[in-house]
């Protein structure tokens, strides 16, 4: 395969190491790729920047803020696609293959931060790079090849139309490499056709799924990034301390009651547990009561109901990611990725499908096509409801699509990823499709006014996530679920239907996730005390972050993303749920609870607590200052303030 343009990053460009030595854990270089010109180069980043930005979303947010101005929309050549790891990636802490994708996404045309794992981050670090920053648009379809110092753009015409698993299979065969010797993150047909909720999928089942990052990659005509497991070493400031911190985190994950089920079964227990709380979204928010016995949906049975095999990410001991083989039905024998809770929800409950074998198959079909399973779920569930109610006709669709029809849902995938027929409308995502169809169909759709959708939960019983999703600078969870909340002074329990208490909790927990997503580590292996993560980071790099600093770092990153978001025209006026998203559950444990009545109060509280201006949405100068970002205050408010 001839390279369109070959350029080997030159070591000579790096300044002599007269400055501070490179902190441990870092590869030390950022890889830059300009697809328009074909130029590839690497640039060092300073120990000071490393300390301030850490990596992952911290690094990505800074690049987005500095390099993607207002007029650079998601599909503009100058949009950046940042694929960033962090200082823990490639080290022996569990779950450290981490990748954070930061870009201006196609879903909201605003900032995106979305994570995936596997081995990409580790392979990239061993190749000598902490992050890849892609800009420009290629003339022809290409993929990025990285093998230590050899970095090339290669012709991808033979990969076009291939799904993400096929793409990795083909490249593995082409390279003559197997298993984790080659990590490939790619877009499927969805990304190629600029579906607004196209994802980037890698290493068979790991998906950076949010906000249409796959469409950005597709717009750039970058089909895939393939990284050969590099040969460089990563040093740690205190390797023994690092191994000890890793072991402590592992011990904590295995034994702490709040993490243990995750250790044993990943997110599988979610289905049954969330159902008990009214948080399992069934049939597009039309009910919260399962029509079937949930026995087969117990975590143990979900796992053992399949021929399954561990399929862990870099250095991870969680019994979380698995591969499984479909045991019954038309796809018997097919090897698939064990769905996360999000998959069981999006490819299952949301669309009324209750056969785990069928749901598991559809979930991987979505990964392969390169679609976000959450948004697909909301979209497909909505279409099914519309078909049931006669808002969408069989003629419009070309086939019948009833609740729970997984094979029909697969047909819908084809319509969407190829933008055929009604698929052209649906490919624009839930919000745009709902607007296009108008009421009454519109009012059945679950979305945020920013143009995003929730994860796979029923937020009408999970108010903190609705508030988080809607106020986030990245249009999806920015704070996440509480993990050891008391460590940062947040009460362990609040009344889930007390809007003010929930808003205080969401504001109080802010920062942790931004810190975690900068480390190059999986969200599930960070479910330990923040103090342990600080220890691991310290042992790797030699800096001793305190818990307060970590939180401050995460909040600073959030403030920068908020500034990016505002610049993209996403204002507080869009911080509302759709009619259905905020409707009142008609049954189940949260029956009758109404978040709408409390919404304004929740926003007021949240804004006051986080220190953002309620009217403009901007982080207040005092907030910026407290977060160590006075420069941001100046840029947002001008020097006079």
């Amino acid at each position, binding site marked *: 395969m001839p390279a369109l343009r070959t350029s080997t990053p030159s070591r000579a460009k790096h300044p002599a190491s007269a400055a501070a030595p490179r902190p441990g854990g870092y590869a030390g270089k950022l890889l830059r790729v300009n697809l328009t010109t074909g130029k590839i180069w690497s640039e060092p980043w300073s120990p000071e920047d490393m300390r301030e930005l850490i990596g992952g979303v911290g690094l990505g947010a800074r690049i987005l803020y500095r390099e993607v101005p207002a007029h650079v929309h998601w599909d503009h050549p100058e949009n950046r696609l940042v694929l960033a790891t962090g200082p823990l990636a490639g080290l022996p802490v569990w779950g450290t293959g981490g990748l954070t994708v930061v870009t201006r996404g196609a879903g909201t045309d605003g900032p995106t931060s979305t994570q995936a794992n596997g081995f990409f981050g580790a392979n990239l670090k061993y190749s000598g790079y902490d992050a890849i920053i892609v800009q420009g648009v290629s003339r022809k379809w290409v993929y990025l090849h990285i093998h230590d110092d050899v970095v090339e753009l290669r012709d991808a015409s033979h990969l076009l139309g291939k799904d993400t698993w096929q793409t990795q299979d083909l490249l593995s065969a082409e390279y003559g490499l197997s298993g984790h010797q080659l990590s490939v993150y790619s877009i499927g047909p969805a990304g190629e056709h600029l579906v607004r909720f196209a994802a980037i999928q890698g290493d068979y089942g790991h998906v950076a799924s949010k906000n249409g990052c796959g469409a950005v990659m597709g717009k750039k005509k970058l089909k895939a990034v393939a990284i050969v497991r590099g040969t460089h070493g990563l040093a740690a400031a205190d390797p023994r301390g690092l191994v000890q911190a890793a072991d402590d985190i592992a011990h904590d994950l295995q034994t702490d009651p709040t993490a243990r089920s995750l250790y044993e079964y990943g997110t599988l227990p979610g289905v049954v547990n969330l159902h008990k709380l009214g948080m399992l979204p069934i049939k597009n928010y039309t009910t919260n009561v399962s029509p079937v016995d949930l026995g087969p949906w117990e975590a143990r049975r979900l796992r053992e109901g399949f021929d399954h095999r561990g399929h*862990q990410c870099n250095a991870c001991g969680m019994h979380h990611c698995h591969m499984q083989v479909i045991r019954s039905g038309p796809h018997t024998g097919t090897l698939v990725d064990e769905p996360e809770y999000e998959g069981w929800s999006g490819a299952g409950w949301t669309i009324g499908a209750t056969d785990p074998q069928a749901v598991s198959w559809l979930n991987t079909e979505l990964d392969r096509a390169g679609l976000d399973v959450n948004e697909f779920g909301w979209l497909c569930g909505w279409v099914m409801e519309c078909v049931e109610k006669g808002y969408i006709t069989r003629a419009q669709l070309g086939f019948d699509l009833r609740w729970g029809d997984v094979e029909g849902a697969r047909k819908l995938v084809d319509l969407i990823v190829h933008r055929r027929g009604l698929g052209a409308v649906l490919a624009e995502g839930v919000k745009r499709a709902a607007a296009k169809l108008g009421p009454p169909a519109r009012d059945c759709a679950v979305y945020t006014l920013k143009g995003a959708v929730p994860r796979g939960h029923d937020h009408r019983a999970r108010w903190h996530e609705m508030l988080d999703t809607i106020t986030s600078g990245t249009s999806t969870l920015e704070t996440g679920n509480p993990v050891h909340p008391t460590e940062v002074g947040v009460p362990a329990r609040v009344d889930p239907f007390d809007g003010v208490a929930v808003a205080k909790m969401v504001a109080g927990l802010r920062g942790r996730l931004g810190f975690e997503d900068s480390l190059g580590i999986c969200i599930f292996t960070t479910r330990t005390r923040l103090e342990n993560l600080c220890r691991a980071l310290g042992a790797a790099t030699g800096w001793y972050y305190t818990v307060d600093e970590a939180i401050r770092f995460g909040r600073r990153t959030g403030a920068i993303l908020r500034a990016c978001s505002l610049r993209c025209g996403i204002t507080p006026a869009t911080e509302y749920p759709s009619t259905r998203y905020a409707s009142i559950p008609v049954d189940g444990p949260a029956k009758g609870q109404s978040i709408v009545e409390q919404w304004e109060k929740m926003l007021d509280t949240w804004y006051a607590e986080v220190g953002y201006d309620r009217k403009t949405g901007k982080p207040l100068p005092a907030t910026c200052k407290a977060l160590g970002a006075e420069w941001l205050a100046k840029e947002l408010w001008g020097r006079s303030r």
Partner: protein
Amino acid sequence: MRVLKLTPDKCTGCLRCELACAYMQTGEFQPAKSVIRVSPFEGHTSYAPYTCTQCAEGWCMTACPVGAITITAAGAKDVLDDKCVGCKLCTIACPYGTMFYDPDTRKAFKCNLCGGAPACADACPTAAITYEEVATADWIGDFAHERAARVLAAR
């Protein structure tokens, strides 16, 4: 003698053993220099670690033209760096693919059981690698044979 017993059904392919091994061997986290290596079977799933069995013949040891490979107190064949010249003969003599060569140091290197406390066994989160008083064996052949059937059938 205690040997590295491999239980492939337990392996999830996380490669933590490679990291631990490389750290013991080089002081850095550099899996390219690990002497235990995890391979996939059944396409991109079903992994198993693979390393030196400390075989009775010691093809590496008998092949070495300068006597640089010896047997340690732990019973492992080990390369003496001050004697090894880096001729690579051991890498073609070993029929298992478990002799390695470091182009940076220009020495051969291999599993030396970490002097009797193997780091890979400590690092393995699933006990797929254990250090036990058992006869060495082809630990993963049957597993690979069974799992590979799917890859072959798929062709």
